[in-house]
């Protein structure tokens, strides 16, 4: 019995951000000590639907950035890790792939800012893309590293012996097993990019206003209602991804 209660308790804790955000996004004039005595309103959600809304614009920007970044990062990481797995012996290759990722992204951004300025990439969409690629590609390389095992190598040799070229190898030997992993990596990179704040804020000079930056903006304006709304929007893609890919996550998450 206590076990059931514990599980329910855990579930509640995990759901609590969602609940708090919903609560706040429908509230206004939330003065102390009101819990339910203050007015509830849909006006914040209505501003979401108005076209000049900063929210809509930043959703668009965030989606574009995350989609592009995860697509490129997954693709490149896949092949780069193949190169490392097959053609290198030292484990330092893989270790060094951790470096960009393990230094907090915002610290990396601070140190690289000079180069971004020189290339004229600060405050630009392209600059943010590049900056986020610098942390997602290494992640992707690490992610795929264990995929390129001797089994896959043997299969590639088999295809080669039977007269196939690289494309055939891809289609028959590699992709069938890799499909699931490619999808998971895509989603992981998507999440990294989607959640990114520090690096995006610093290199973007606040000009590229992704959803996370908007959340902070509302927080600093002491507008918890819009911040909650933006937070809810931030939660939607990950929740959707989680729902759609449950089986993938269960099998593959621990590879990261």
């Amino acid at each position, binding site marked *: 019995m206590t076990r059931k209660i514990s599980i329910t308790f855990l579930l509640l804790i995990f759901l609590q951000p969602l609940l708090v955000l919903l609560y706040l996004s429908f509230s206004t004039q939330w003065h102390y000590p009101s819990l339910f005595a203050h007015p509830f309103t849909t006006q914040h959600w209505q501003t979401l639907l108005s076209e000049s809304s900063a929210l809509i614009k930043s959703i668009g920007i965030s989606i574009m950035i995350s989609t592009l970044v995860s697509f490129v990062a997954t693709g490149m990481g896949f092949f780069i890790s193949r190169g490392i797995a097959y053609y290198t012996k030292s484990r330092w290759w893989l270790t060094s792939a951790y470096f960009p990722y393990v230094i907090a992204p*915002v610290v990396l951004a601070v*140190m690289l800012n000079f180069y971004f300025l020189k290339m004229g990439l600060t405050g630009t969409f392209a600059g943010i893309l590049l900056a986020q690629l610098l942390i997602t590609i290494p992640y992707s390389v690490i992610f795929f590293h264990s995929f390129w095992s001797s089994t896959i190598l043997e299969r590639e040799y088999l295809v080669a012996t039977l007269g196939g070229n690289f494309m055939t190898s891809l289609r028959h030997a590699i992709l069938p097993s890799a499909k699931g992993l490619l999808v998971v990596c895509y989603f992981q990179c998507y999440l990294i990019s989607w959640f990114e704040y520090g690096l995006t804020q610093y290199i973007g000079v606040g000009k590229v206003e992704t959803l996370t930056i908007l959340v902070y903006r509302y927080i600093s304006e002491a507008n918890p209602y819009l911040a909650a709304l933006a937070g809810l929007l931030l939660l939607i893609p990950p929740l959707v991804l989680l729902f759609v890919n449950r089986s993938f996550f269960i099998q593959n998450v621990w590879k990261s």
Partner: protein
Amino acid sequence: MLKNTVIRRSLAGLFLLLCALPVVLAMGYAALYSVGLTGLQSDGFMLQHWATLFQGEFLSSFLYSLWIAGASSALALATALAALFTLRKELTDKRVYRMLFLPLTVPPVVIGFVIYQLFSGGGILSRVSYQSGLIDQISHFPEFVHDAYGVGIILAHLFIGFPFFLILLLNLYQQNNLDELEITAASLGAGRKDILLRVHLPVLLKGIFPVVSLYTIFFMGAYEIPLILGQSSPQMFTILILEKLQRYSLSDIPVAYAMALFYAIICIGTLSWLMMQYKKRWN
């Protein structure tokens, strides 16, 4: 084979370009700036900025970050282990297991924000306490955010760390067939506590060690969460770096670069050391 070498070279080149070069460039610039060899305000080579790094607010900030990182990891691991041993049967149920993934969908920004709205003086829990008569004044509500121990920050990290460690532990448990080991040990007469301590724990800890270390480093470099929940002094290391970069005193900027470089060196050093340890054990 010639073709292999060409591929090898181009891939290695690509890898260097995208992964290693930025780090090298980053640290290079930071190094130059911090010793005064570049930058508008620079006066020439000086090690003074590095000297200030090991006193006063930098030292306390560094120690504070270590505390937050260590406490967050330790607490997350402890609670995950506790949950593993008490609720394992329930957790193998597919639906329950899936619920563990929920917190992973929450970004640090949101977690920081939610914890603030829940635990701050004017927050939800405070209002509940007030209305239920537990406190009669807002100032009597205990300090969870902007406090000396970083309780709010640790709670936020716990929210992310606990489920993730638990997922890993469950996987480790299965992979190492600890179920069967338990049965064998029991048939040999071992008591429940003994099994836990001597059989399960060592295997689990060894398996989860790399991830826990990695997460400790991540917690140390936390930025978004302490930005919302942290206190004035000492601050988390990353926040201090950004502050020094953007404060009024322009002479603080080289120090900020020194701090960033220092932090990068520590992270890379720790990671490399861990890698060597891990490979040693693995072999």
